[in-house]
């Protein structure tokens, strides 16, 4: 199969995390850092899954709670709440997930085509499925998801490739 998007090459590394009962993986090269959840500054007229903005060493970075967006997991904020800070198209975005599990190395052969339904994500944002240690992992096209109009993080999703 030919995975959508260009980010999948042979034997790439992926960061896996949990959202609700499912395991997801994203290209590790998009991950800037992983940090604990800290209090955010709320922004008016934002959907509930956009928690607000934080100060990441001088950058004002929006925080998206994927648990709220996809209606999974227990939405609580404590010292164990994890934020994955992503670097997408020269933008920085933090996503809140239930937990970070592991870094896995996957090659093309291990990938299976994604199902059309049955996971929280629209199949548009899925690259495929893989099985690691007898667990199913869903590969997410995080670039596509974060810059999607559905999340509405950026003004013009089409133009996010342009650096600011």
């Amino acid at each position, binding site marked *: 199969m030919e995975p959508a998007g260009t980010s999948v090459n042979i034997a790439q590394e992926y960061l896996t995390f949990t959202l609700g009962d499912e395991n997801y993986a994203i290209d590790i090269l998009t991950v800037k850092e992983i940090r604990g959840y800290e209090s955010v500054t709320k922004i*008016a007229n*934002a959907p509930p899954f956009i928690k607000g903005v*934080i100060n990441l060493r001088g950058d004002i*970075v929006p925080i998206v709670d994927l648990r709220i967006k996809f209606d999974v997991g227990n939405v609580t904020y404590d010292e164990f709440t994890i934020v994955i800070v992503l670097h997408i198209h020269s933008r920085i*975005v933090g996503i809140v997930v239930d937990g970070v599990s592991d870094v896995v190395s996957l090659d093309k052969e291990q990938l299976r085509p994604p199902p059309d339904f049955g996971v929280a994500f629209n199949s548009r944002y899925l690259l495929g499925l893989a099985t690691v240690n007898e667990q199913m992992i869903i590969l997410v096209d995080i670039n596509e998801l974060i810059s999607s109009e559905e999340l509405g993080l950026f003004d013009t999703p089409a133009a996010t490739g342009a650096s600011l």
Partner: protein
Amino acid sequence: MSIDMQQFHTVFFDESQEHLEEMEQLLLDLDIENPDLEMLNSIFRAAHSIKGGSGIFGFDALGSVTHIMESLLDKIRKGQMAIVASMVDLFLNSVDQLKDILHCYRCGEEIDWAAVQRLSKELELVTAGKNSQQEELAEQQQGYGFFATPEVVTEEAFGFFDEPVADDSFGFFDDLPPISDAPANASSQTLASDAVFGFFEELLIPTQAPTTEHHSASENSPEKPSASIIDTRASSSPTPTNAVTDDEKIISLPDRAAAIKPAVSKQKQNEPATVESSSIRVDVAKVDQLINLVGEIVITQSMMNLLGKSLEGALAEKFQTVANELERNTREIQEAVMSIRMLPVSFVFNRFPRVVRDLSTKLGKQIDLLIEGGETELDKGLTEKLVDPLTHLVRNSIDHGIESAEVRRERGKNPTGTVLLRAAQQGGNIVISIRDDGGGLNRERILAKARENNIPISENPRDEEVWQLIFAPGFSTAAEVTDVSGRGVGMDVVKRNVQSLGGRIDIESRAGEGATFTIHLPLTLAIVDGMCVSVGSQTFIVPLVHIVESMQPSAADIKTLAANDQLLHVRNEYWPILPLHRVMQLDSQFTDASEGIVVLIETTKYRFALFVDALVGQQQVVIKSLEKHYKRVQGIAGATIMGDGSVALILDVESLALSVNDSVQMAAAG
């Protein structure tokens, strides 16, 4: 020499741009009655440097024009031809065209060869005016201007240390030691002449016409009357590049001084690299990155101070000492880094002699332009954005302010009007004023015009209120529209531009005596003076320029309208109340305006009372972009990082006003 020439193009473009600006400046300063030889030499050198570089890089259009200019200039400075006003005009015109050509090369655009030919013809015509010998030169340059240089060199004035360097290469090679035996000549010559005349001599040498024999130079020099040497120096001193008279100055001068090659080449013997290293070109992005990083250090430092307060005992004391030391150092670093972005305001002011000259000729008025405080430093971003509003104001003063010479005579004034451009730093602000000694603003005409345009005015308004009316969109009292000003689009744009820089503009005017426009600007773009207000657990910043006053309103002054809208009654005026917690969708401490604080806010178009929980305090904040990683949010101009590391949003009062738009208009009607 196999060097990739591309890498030098940018340097050449930058340097040529500077040379052209220098030329323009010198041409404007030039006294036609009594032209200063050193100035002519500097103009010549600028033209020559551009020509040299264009030859190397094959920029023929630049090369051919500068070559003819050079020939003409050479004649003038040798006294073979007297300079007249029309020549200065022609030169200025040429400088403009050269700038266009330079721009074309820089952007890879098509060169307007027809215009180049036309200009060359024009210049040649003037050059050929007297001397047939020069025509040969003109012919040669048609082929390939650059190689005609040696002919010029042999008879030219200052040249023997200049030419070998400039011809072989271009500016950035300058500091290579000259291949010829010029240094030896130069040193003995300088020493010899120093003994005679002291350091003024260096200016004299270029103005002389020595041959390549060094003793002839020193023999020649005493013939020059010393009085004129001192004159030379005095008259050229306003232009910093001309005032290079001693070694110390040469070292400390920025690299545009490198244009003065004779002076520089003396330097070469001792410290070849000094001039080059005294200033470097740096990408603004790198400087901005540095500024951002320093901003981070400042924040981290204040967070650390906060933490230090929770320490106890002897350790706390030690920590405090170290923390204080660090605080002082970071503050110094911050100031130093900020100063990198600072440019003297003369970068803006220097274009005005030209504007005034062109305009006064066009309008047939006699106008002197005085410039004060050109050395005041301003953020680079600000200087760039100041150009348009200032140009508008200066044009305005000349067109509407200064009367014609006849009228001025009738009124018993000096027929020559004066426009004064002044910059000064006052505390954390830069104040730039444009003063003219013209007729002043006409109160009656402005009021009549305002009524005509249905602009609301109070009864018997104060002068200041009347003057502010001219900033209303579409307002112009000019009796007729000229192509200089009077389309009524100017002043509101000026005010908007100034406000977008976080500044404000005041007018003072006296009938018959003139008007003064004063622009107050913050020192830098990245910082705004703000009032911190709190709503619930969050802090917001209101830009101070928009705040009229803050108060705790009494319940009796609050009038409730339908649909939860409230008005605040202050001194016989009604201000619509805008609860910030409602706009920002937050839980606030208070829901009744009489319990909290209202901040009266006035923008160009609207005014309203912002209802918040409490005032936290006034402080300067560094503006951070929210759009960089998120998107534009209505009512928010940006964000900043507070001392504790948390993010506070900076309110955009103009767009906040839109959310109370309806009630505002209602209030204005009532």
